[in-house]
């Protein structure tokens, strides 16, 4: 009985995090983008600096009619948002936020493989949406999504493999237990490759050509309305939380910090994740969208060689110090 309560409590906490953190990131994006562009952003909903704007957005989305185009493949079209969103919920289960047994949803032996595998499944949602909408723009968006994933899966895996080599384990808590501060300069190239590849997998600017609203009208999501469209948006923000959390755990030392690592480790994890989420938003405001061929070139001629060099460096240092 005690075990059941324990499992239920963990699942509940992960679910609450899954429902709130993406909204917090979304509201931060509203405000940060506004201030970077010399505006105020939402100010009315909820009274204090428009804190309830996303709640209001959610109510608006729930009221809209759920339209399925007559030419669309009905079942695939309706299933796609769930396929896009659920993987991120599963990934959140495996991310440790503090030391000790209680600070992770579920300890997995092959944690890195689990998170990368399940994150890759989320892209199937965009592909299904792109094909099933029976819309030229959606199909183009789906094609770009697939090409982008194929280009970015490899450097992301290689960068993660470098950390696994350094730690000698593929379990996420195990990597954190093996972490030392000097891993930061040692793995910095891998960290940058991982973060950039993750941005491309999430289709965030400057890698947002699969959704490019000004040329292919939101790509795979052109035909979506109401709640299903909101689910795709939620998947994007949940993806930001997951990517930033993973980068924190793999490369920035998670709950390690200059002080208070035992009791307040989770504060360090959340702080680092929040700073990375801010960087994601910052990049959106700063950089113009890359072209599709520029993205492929960046991946195959820069990120893949860099991640291979990082693996070589990791191997050499590992042999020297052991």
């Amino acid at each position, binding site marked *: 009985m005690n075990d059941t309560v324990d499992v239920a409590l963990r699942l509940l906490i992960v679910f609450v995090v899954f429902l709130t953190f993406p909204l917090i990131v979304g509201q931060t994006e509203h405000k940060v983008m506004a201030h970077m562009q010399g505006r105020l952003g939402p100010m009315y909903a909820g009274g204090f600096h428009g804190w309830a704007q996303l709640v209001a957005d959610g109510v608006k989305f729930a009221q809209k009619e759920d339209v399925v185009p007559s030419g*669309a493949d009905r079942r695939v079209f309706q299933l796609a948002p769930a396929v896009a969103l659920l993987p991120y919920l599963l990934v959140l289960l495996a991310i440790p936020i503090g030391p000790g047994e209680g600070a992770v949803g579920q300890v997995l032996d*092959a944690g890195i493989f689990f998170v990368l595998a399940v994150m890759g499944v989320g892209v199937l949602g965009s*592909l299904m949406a*792109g*094909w099933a909408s029976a819309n030229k723009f959606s199909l183009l968006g789906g*094609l770009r999504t697939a090409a982008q994933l*194929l280009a970015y899966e490899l450097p992301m895996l290689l960068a993660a493999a470098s950390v696994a080599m350094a730690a000698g384990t593929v379990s996420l808590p195990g990597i954190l237990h093996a972490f030392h501060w000097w891993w930061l300069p040692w793995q910095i190239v891998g960290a940058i490759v991982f973060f950039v590849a993750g941005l491309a997998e999430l289709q965030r600017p400057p890698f947002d050509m699969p959704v490019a609203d000004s040329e292919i009208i939101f790509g795979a999501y052109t035909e979506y309305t109401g709640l299903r469209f909101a689910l795709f948006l939620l998947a994007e923000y949940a993806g930001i939380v997951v990517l930033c959390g993973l980068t924190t755990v793999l490369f920035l030392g998670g709950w390690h910090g200059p002080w208070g690592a035992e009791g307040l480790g989770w504060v360090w994890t959340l702080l680092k994740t929040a700073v990375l989420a801010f960087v994601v938003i910052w990049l959106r405001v700063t950089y113009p969208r890359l072209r599709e061929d520029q993205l492929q070139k960046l991946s195959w001629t820069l990120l893949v060689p860099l991640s291979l060099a990082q693996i070589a460096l990791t191997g050499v240092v590992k042999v020297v110090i052991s």
Partner: protein
Amino acid sequence: MSLAAQTHGFLSPTGVEIAFLLVGLVTFGAALVSVTTRQLVHAALWLVVALGGLAVEYLLLTAEFIAWVQVLIYVGSVVVLLLFGLMLTKAPIGRSPDADSGNRWAALTVAVAAAAALVWVVVDAFRATWIDLDGAAAGSTKVTGASLFQNWVLPFEALSVLLLAALVGAIVLSRKAKATAAASSAVADAPGGRAAKEEVR
């Protein structure tokens, strides 16, 4: 092992075995639908269900590492590649009337023969083997890695050479296609160039 085998009846209905059987049925059904459906993209999506079901079966057999690699490689990459290829063709929404093959009986024969051979070999080899859940999991990353790089290094290296050859082959093929494309575009350009010259004249 024999002691463990004595305490287990063959196919005694524990929860794990029932789950294994049910997931197996789902996987089999999805595989059947994916080869019989006339809707091309649906076939690819049913393939996702079949491959995912296999991953769950690996998990139930405590082979966690293989299960996640299965999801990563097959669901995450191979199916995406398939869908990408399908999107480049004109796969219609709804049935494709020509999605059939004259080889269906030959394919069925080969499939049944392969399945029979595999089932026979696996059942014969592991009839009395039970997974010990108390010790280190037999399929954990550590155990898998140790056996891969201690007992199976030679096949592993042979496979990597095979993959390298495939990689080089893919590069050669794509470069050759580029050269012929350039040649054909040069041929296509020639009359246009002449026409342009005549216009200048």
